[in-house]
């Protein structure tokens, strides 16, 4: 099993005729994902990887009965694309672009809550469910394998590093979810953890966090009643205050968002917190002993 993304997810690609859209459509299909079509206004006579291209989400949903969409349009147009998907009944929207204005994200997330839509991102690598052979995202295909570990991360490449070490260490994954590196994103650690809690196949969870905000502290409160082992690794130990470390959300502001505060909260909640990414597998082996 998996969370959020399964074989039943019929996927549209918004912005399918752009470079990124084309490349990742091919990669998603190669992984086995059920991509059923794409949107690119004015280009509906084209086909991409043999898939139909539509002018509107409405038309695409009417024809393909898609229920999920991944957005590759440039950031200034992402709010329009996200709303178009949500207003047409799409229930899982993955927002890949970086640099979507925060106010746009606030509006997207507020509407998603009203319509009961799951938004992943913005500024995310997406999500992947290896056991279901499906993915919506830009992550490399070869580093994952099916198994009992749920992974929830804020960062892309760092989560690849850790997922690959899990795979090499014999720990496959149910679903790997990228929340995104922006200050305002659709998910919280808590919302994703809640799905993992209810997924019987997920036996332990790896959290990959970083400095900035207080998502990890809030998650710690939830972990007290989570009931499954958790290993956490957080990046940004050496980051100076007041500097954005690549991600718009990765910044220690006015004394908030430090690693110490996050690690302390997670440790107190019973998570196994490691200092370096290569320590995750050993820590996982340790906490899995009791499971």
């Amino acid at each position, binding site marked *: 099993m998996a969370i959020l993304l399964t074989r039943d997810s019929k996927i549209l690609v918004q912005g399918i005729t752009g470079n990124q859209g084309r490349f990742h459509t091919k990669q998603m299909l190669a992984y086995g994902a059920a991509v059923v079509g794409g949107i690119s206004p004015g280009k509906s006579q084209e086909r991409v990887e043999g898939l139909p291209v539509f002018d509107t989400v409405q038309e695409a949903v009417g024809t393909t009965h898609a229920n999920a969409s991944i957005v590759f349009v440039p*950031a*200034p147009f992402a709010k329009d694309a996200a709303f178009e998907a949500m207003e047409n009944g799409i229930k899982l929207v993955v927002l890949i672009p970086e*640099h*979507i*204005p*925060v*106010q*746009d994200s*606030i*509006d997207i*997330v*507020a*509407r998603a809550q*009203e319509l009961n839509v799951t938004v992943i991102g913005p500024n995310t*690598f997406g999500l992947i469910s290896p056991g279901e052979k499906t993915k919506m995202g*830009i*992550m*490399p295909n070869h*580093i994952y394998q099916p198994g009992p570990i749920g992974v929830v*991360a*804020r*960062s*892309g*490449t*760092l*989560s*690849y*590093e850790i997922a*690959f070490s899990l795979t090499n260490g014999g720990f496959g994954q149910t679903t790997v979810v990228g929340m995104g*590196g*922006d*200050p*305002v*994103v659709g998910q*919280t650690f808590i919302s994703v953890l809640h799905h993992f809690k209810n997924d019987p196949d997920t036996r332990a969870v790896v959290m*990959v966090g*970083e*400095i900035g905000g*207080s*998502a990890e502290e*809030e998650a710690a409160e939830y972990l007290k009643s989570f009931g499954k082992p958790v290993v956490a690794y957080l*990046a*940004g*130990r*050496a*980051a*100076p205050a007041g*500097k*954005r*470390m*690549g*991600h*718009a*959300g990765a910044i220690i502001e*006015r*004394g908030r968002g430090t690693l110490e505060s996050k690690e302390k909260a997670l440790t107190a909640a019973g998570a196994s917190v490691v*200092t*370096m*990414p*290569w320590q995750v597998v050993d820590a996982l082996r340790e906490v899995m002993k009791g499971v």
Partner: protein
Amino acid sequence: MKQYEYLAKGALREYGIPVPPGRLVNNPDEAAQAVQEIGPAALKAQVLVGGRGKAGGIRFATTPDEARQVAQAMLGMDLKGYTVERLYAEGKLAIEREFYISVTTDRNKKVPLVMASLAGGVEIEDVDDAQIVRQWVDPRVGVMPYFGRELAQRLGLNGVLARELSDLVVKLYRIYQDRDAELVEINPLAVVDGHLVAADARLNIDDSALFRHGDVPIIDEGSELEQKVHKIGLAYVELDGDIAIMANGAGMAMATVDAIQYFGGKPANFLDAGGGASVEPTAQALDVLVSMHPKVIFINIFGGITRCDDVAQAILQVKNSSGIPVPLVVRLVGTNEKEGVRLLEEAGISAYSDMAPAAERAVELAGEGRA
């Protein structure tokens, strides 16, 4: 992106929030003229550092001559590493009380947050939590005057001040929305003659929204080197060590900096070469690292979208053109790893496949690390 005080005040004025009379001052003559026009004034250095007053960045002048002298002394002075290029001359206020108000984004609740306090004039982090009133905004509803009345009531204000606060918070929220602000803050929100006046203001604009604000001046607070790398389009933060670092992706770059420090080394920088960077930007980024004259350069790549052969090409390009005169440690795994490693090996560079030994080796080559 932070905005200078005079720009923040300008925004408040434009939206009808009362601010003291003020003039932007570029030279001593303009300072004299400003005081001529607005009377006794504070001359405030336009720099983006906190604690400006204590560091000598705010001085007073009562006459035009005095203003000229004070401006002469302040313009060009160094304030916590920043050169003072402009001053803002602002009429002195007879402040009776100091409040605080701001609109910002609550990252966890994912909605705008209004914070207000009757204990203003100090950094809000230093105010006791019990003295701060927080009201979250439903973004689909926005802020109407009733929101301000409720805020005033919870603060314990009534009469004129309550009415003025209610009016002000509506305008402040409009600035937050219209300007794509991360933060718009008035501190202190002064009471002068029984009325509210914005004595000092901060306005930080969301970098991601600059495309729809063509009129906003781009202010890069970074060091010279940081600004140079930002212009290439890469995220870069200068640190004070001597092991130069490049990695792909923000999280990996942070973890790489952490790893160098973990083994006792001193990272010189944070550099995210991008999650899917191709040859050219990677080579440009490496050129920057070489120009820093570090003890060691450490490149840590997990090739997902980034292709290892592209990274190897970039390394060889720099090595063959400008040269890499310091020890280089490369960790290279992932997409097209074999090809990338082969290219490097042909040029006499061996690559690590694991992060930990590579980071440890970089620290060792720098002559640092744990005894």
